[in-house]
């Protein structure tokens, strides 16, 4: 592994992040709306109060000035101040990031642990009944949007069966096992919704990748050497078939964050996705900038991780 390569990639990331921030800020500035809109429609609040607030938060300055102000603060590690909650943006995000990471992490683990074995088994015996069933479910999984599967799960498991709660509570008044029990119970539905949508794509990908590899000569050679079928599959087929899948997983993670926004809204999961939605609705520019910036950093980071993993799995790929 080449350290120089990583440093170079990180340096290249800087201009793209900068560009992203300029575009984001510009779009937000052009978008209609005003963070103190609600004050404007309320006749009991004098317009001077709104004007004073706008001046206080620098909303009356020209866009480029506001951007430079935001940028210079950001470089110094100051993420800005939320108009809506009068709280530092980094604090707001830190409050919510853990929940998002737990839910997304759990859903990714679920997706991978379902998709890889299913994809491999389906490829070993293509067009068998198992393969047909797996393909059907995969198709359903990636074609149904999360807001639909989410609602269906709520109707079945919360309303009809009354087994699971559909409002996610970050604060649970319990200790020890009960605390974890409650957390797992309320996480089941959001994690399943997100995980299965992911698993659908992964199953299809894994299956075709294994099918590509399994026909290669070296696999036949391995078999003819008398190595057990199980060992051939695990050691020789899966390892090579995983290479494109790993890239896919890494590259898809940012998209998962996007998908999580909807899921978080449905189940009221207090993650950064629901924070982003609320901030967009309230025209709370600093918070929108903060959250979207984190998501774009993740995209850049996971792109890099994908490339590095690629080289690790397949030493023939070199970096320059």
């Amino acid at each position, binding site marked *: 592994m080449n350290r120089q390569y990583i440093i170079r990639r990180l340096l290249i990331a800087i201009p793209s992040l900068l560009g992203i921030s300029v575009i984001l800020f510009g779009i937000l500035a052009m978008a*209609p*709306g*005003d963070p*103190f*809109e*609600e*004050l*404007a*429609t*309320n*006749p*009991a*609040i*004098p*317009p*001077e*109060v709104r004007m*004073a*607030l706008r001046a*206080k938060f620098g909303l009356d300055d020209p866009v480029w000035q506001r951007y430079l102000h935001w940028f210079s603060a950001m470089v110094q590690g100051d993420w800005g*101040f*939320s108009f*809506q*909650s*009068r*709280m530092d943006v980094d604090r*707001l995000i830190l*409050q*919510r990031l853990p929940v998002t990471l737990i839910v997304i992490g759990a859903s990714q683990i679920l997706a991978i642990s379902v998709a890889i074995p299913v994809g491999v088994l389906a490829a070993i015996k293509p067009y068998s009944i198992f393969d047909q069933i797996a393909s059907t479910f995969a198709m359903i999984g990636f074609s149904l949007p999360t807001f639909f599967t989410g609602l269906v799960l*709520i109707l079945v498991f*919360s*309303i009809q069966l*009354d087994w699971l*709660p*559909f*409002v996610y*509570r*970050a*604060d649970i*008044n319990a200790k020890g096992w009960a605390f974890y029990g409650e957390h797992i119970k309320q996480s089941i539905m959001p994690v399943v919704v997100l995980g299965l949508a992911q698993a659908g794509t992964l199953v299809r990908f894994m299956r075709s990748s294994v099918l590509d590899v399994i026909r290669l000569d070296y696999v036949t050679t391995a078999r003819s050497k008398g190595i057990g079928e199980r060992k051939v599959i695990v050691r020789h087929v899966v390892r090579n078939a995983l290479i494109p899948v790993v890239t896919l997983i890494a590259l898809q993670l940012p998209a998962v964050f996007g998908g999580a926004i909807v899921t978080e*809204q*449905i*189940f*009221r999961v*207090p993650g950064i996705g*629901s*924070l982003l939605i*609320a901030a967009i*609705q*309230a*025209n709370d520019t600093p918070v929108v900038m903060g959250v979207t910036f984190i998501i774009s950093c993740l995209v850049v980071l996971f792109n890099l991780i994908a490339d590095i993993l690629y080289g690790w799995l397949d030493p023939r790929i070199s970096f320059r």
Partner: protein
Amino acid sequence: MNEKEMRRLIGEVKHGKLSRRAFAQRMMAVGLSAPMATQLLAIAGVAHAQPKSQYKPTKRGGGGLLKVLWWQGPTLLNPHFAVGTKDQDGSRLFYDPLAAWDPDGNLKPKLAASIPGREDGTLAADGKSAVWKLRQNVTWHDGKPFTADDVVFNWEYAKDPATAATTAASYNECVVEKIDQYSVMVKFAKATPFWADAFVGTRGMIIPKHLFAEYSGAKSREAPTNLKPVGTGPYMFKDFKPGDLVAGVINPNFYENNKPYFDAIEMKGGGDAISAARAVLQSGEYDFAWNLQVEDEILARLEKGGKGKVVISPGGNIEHIQLNTTDPWTEVDGERSSLKTKHPTLSDPAVRQAISLLVDKDSIEKHIYGRTGPATANFVNNPARFVSKTTKFEFNVDKANEVLEKAGWKKGADGIREKDGKKLKFVYQTSINQPRQKTQAIVKQAAQKAGIDIELKSVTASVFFSSDVANPDTYTKFYCDLQMYTTTMSQPDPEVFMVQFASYEAATKENKWQGRNITRWQNKAYDDNYKAAQSEVDPVKRAAMFVEANNMVINNYVVIPVVSRPGVSASGLKLNNSISGWDNNTWDLSDWYKDA
């Protein structure tokens, strides 16, 4: 209703011939709010109502966790910064005002020991001062005593322009003086019939001086207590995640005995109104859900889940159609709908009358809003469906045709009426919101039968309600003939509310469309009446003037009221709570309890 009649009614209440509630209902029928009615009684010397307590629990605590859903969660917890009712509702867990408005518009003492009244001399007959006696047993959550200094401090804090408090309007016009440790006097420069504004209700919550004194004015946003409230309320602060969660635990030293019932409270935010209704009505996961702007049909279906009930609380919000008095299609000095123009067709009173006859309010109520939007005739609300003697509404296509025919509007070859080459073609805009689009369709259909062609336009809410000067589609610009939205009456007194028809308040390019008068109606008689009402010392005369103002707006068809929009919430079947349309949903949180 004139002044004389009003005085007679007040006399009847005084002598016990008429109940307070009946009086309030009559006042509402002519367009006044319930709190306004009870204020009239107070100043006339009728003793305040003694709100009956329905509270049954005999000891403090033991009720477990109270779970409430605000699908837009509070984003800040300093009541003086509150942007919307959600923030006020959240702050109300921890902070109390001196007094609060109950559902009938009566004042209920909170931090005050009693309500100022004429009988004990605490309310001046000239309406220029009121003395509030404070409870003496109140401590802040950190153990410090609550005194008159705190009350005076809140006035100083809110009126300071550098603080930019959203409550400023309630404190700018008065002077607050400490009389002794437990009483304060609120003084007004001019007679103020509506004296119970500062320190009362939604904008009256009191914050502690000892924690905010250092952070007054420009430094206000740095106060650590902004995010960690220390109040006097039934619950003490535990946790706050803006937009997601406000959590509190029981205040063991709450100033009223045996209250509150619940050991802790959790106010959860996020999601949408329908799923919030579902969590209370259908699955029973939550005890209470706020502001359910959902079609009544859906609410009724969810209610069949049998876990909760829908609670309707009448207030002052009203969905109305505005008729432009200026010409939206001609540009003068860089603005359309300029005061220098006159609407080519809507300036004819007959056309206005015809349009008002074509709004089928009963169908709109029946098929669209249901319980969540009773049809109304008055601009100022009319909750209990009392038919006013002066203003009434009817839906009558034939009559509309007749009125137009008489005024010389003849149907052309295309079925659209015209006169002097001007056709009755209108653009009718509103924000995107399903009930509104359905209402538009109902109006359009009826108008067609009367030979009026209406083109419907819907604008995204975030654009429509924005104050963006550059955007032509905002409601304040009103660049079309008709428009519809809900105007909120955030204050029980009509003075602020009725300013939206004063000529000098017209929204124009000059004032960056900040003027409150969106219809740009210019009427000298209204202005004179309004100005006279503002300086009227006699509260009864003043009330009569506002009734007159309301009549002028309706009889001139400046706006067409459609339905009033009461507060809609959902409560679990076992939960006992009182929701007031004149105050926050959580105004009486200390008295909430569950049946065992």
